């Protein structure tokens, strides 16, 4: 691990002030992401600002909004009666995430700010933060920004290329990818929040702003832009509109391992059928893009159609009209259609 200084802060304001002094500071919340980044040299901050003593970790409910503190632990949120009643898909998504111990540590904001598990992004870890053979090293490593991997990844080293293109493509994105990056975003919760049209309360040097959850992520995968937070900004709360969408939406995750695994693909949403046709629908996908993917084309396609598997298949096909496939990830098209069909026709039961 690169050496760093460490400060524990008691409030968001204090955190932001600390970060203002130090351009390469990063925040530490649950630690389940950041500690691994530190070990793998993915980040090399000179200052770690520990938020764990801050108090924006509560869940509250009023008539219009379910508000979840950014620092709330995933396990706490999943078990919260208000969450389970108002937005059960949030509990479903959280309980499908990671493991109980990790959910006990990890925070809601941290979950949204996860980074990809692409094997080229993670790099060659067997080399104990090892060296790059210099024959491959067009970018000599410096002490300040050590590059512990020879694997090409534009997210790790700008301009180094994308290892997936000529490499292993099983996990690669099919939507919203760019020539420079086909990573997927790993969050389950983000997919649900995108479907629920949740907002983020973001605090920074310039004050407070509200950001739609989808706007947290670049529209097209940009290896240089992990998210749209400005330097020093914090997600202090997630606000979920109370209403039909929150009440009806469900989350379906498809993974190889029966638990403790990232999604191959995932789907969140619901439909409302009136007079034999779809009158209202929301649909979002996970595991297919570097962001939670709100399937608006599919939604538009479904409105007014009969609520059948064929309708869903056609709607997903419409959503995938602009998808770009690699030989290794074509399976995701069928699997995604299956996930959407299952979600809408036979939604998973509540916990």
């Amino acid at each position, binding site marked *: 691990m690169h050496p760093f200084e460490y400060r524990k802060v008691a409030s968001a304001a204090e955190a932001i002030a600390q970060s203002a002094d130090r351009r390469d500071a990063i925040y530490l919340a649950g630690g*389940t992401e950041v500690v691994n980044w530190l070990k793998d040299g993915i980040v090399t901050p000179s200052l770690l600002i520990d938020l764990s003593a801050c108090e924006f970790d509560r869940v509250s409910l009023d008539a219009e909004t379910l508000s979840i503190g950014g620092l709330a632990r995933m396990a706490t949120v999943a078990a919260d009666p208000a969450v389970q009643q108002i937005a059960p898909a949030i509990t479903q998504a959280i309980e499908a995430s990671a493991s109980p111990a990790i959910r006990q540590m990890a925070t809601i904001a941290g979950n949204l700010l996860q980074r990809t598990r692409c094997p080229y992004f993670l790099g060659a870890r067997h080399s104990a933060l090892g060296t790059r053979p210099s024959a491959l090293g067009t970018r000599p490593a410096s002490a300040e920004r050590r590059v512990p991997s020879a694997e090409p990844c534009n997210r790790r080293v700008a301009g180094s290329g994308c290892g997936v293109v000529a490499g292993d493509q099983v996990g690669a994105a099919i939507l919203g990818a760019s020539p420079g990056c086909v990573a997927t975003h790993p969050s389950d919760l983000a997919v649900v929040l995108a479907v629920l049209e949740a907002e983020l309360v973001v605090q920074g040097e310039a004050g407070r702003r509200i950001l739609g959850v989808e706007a947290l992520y670049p529209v097209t995968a940009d290896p240089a832009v992990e998210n749209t937070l400005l330097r020093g900004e914090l997600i202090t709360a997630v606000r979920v509109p109370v209403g039909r969408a929150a009440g009806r939406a469900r989350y379906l995750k498809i993974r190889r391992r029966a638990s403790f695994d990232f999604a191959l693909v995932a789907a969140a949403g619901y439909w409302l059928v009136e007079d034999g046709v779809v009158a209202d629908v929301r649909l979002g996908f996970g595991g297919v893009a570097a962001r939670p993917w709100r399937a608006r084309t599919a939604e538009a396609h479904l409105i007014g159609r009969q609520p059948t598997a064929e309708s869903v298949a056609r709607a997903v096909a419409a959503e995938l009209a602009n998808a770009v496939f690699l030989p290794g990830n074509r399976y995701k098209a069928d699997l995604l259609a299956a996930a959407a069909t299952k979600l809408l026709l036979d939604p998973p039961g509540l916990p």
Partner: protein
Amino acid sequence: MPVHLTVNGRAETLDLDLRTTLLAGLRDGLGLTGTKEGCDRGECGACTVLVNGRPALACLMLAVSAEGQTITTIEGLAADGSLHAVQQAFVDHDALQCGFCTPGQIMAAVGCIEAGKAGSTAEIREWMSGNLCRCAAYPQIVAAVAAAANVGR
């Protein structure tokens, strides 16, 4: 940097490099080697301990950020020389083979039962899935957790 923790009921002060994880602090700093390092990336559960009574992965926590917290490790589970109900159930049900993942399994099981997630076989399987066992003693682990949960009732 000095870190103050309550570990297995004892106040401990550790003088640590900031980069030390709680796992390394417990093992190297306090000699509590019952907590195991299986992956050091939060992917196996072998380092599960209780932090303020709840399961947490010691490899994903910097020791310094655990300042002031109460930690229970496998060494702190047995009271007055007799095994904790979960430990006894693991012995009785042959819920271990090589034993390397066992401390983490047991700490996770304590958390699982405490959280009320040991109501059925399916529930135990799901809530114990963060703890990998390559010997694959899983059915015996499930039986042990179910038995220990019944003892507690």
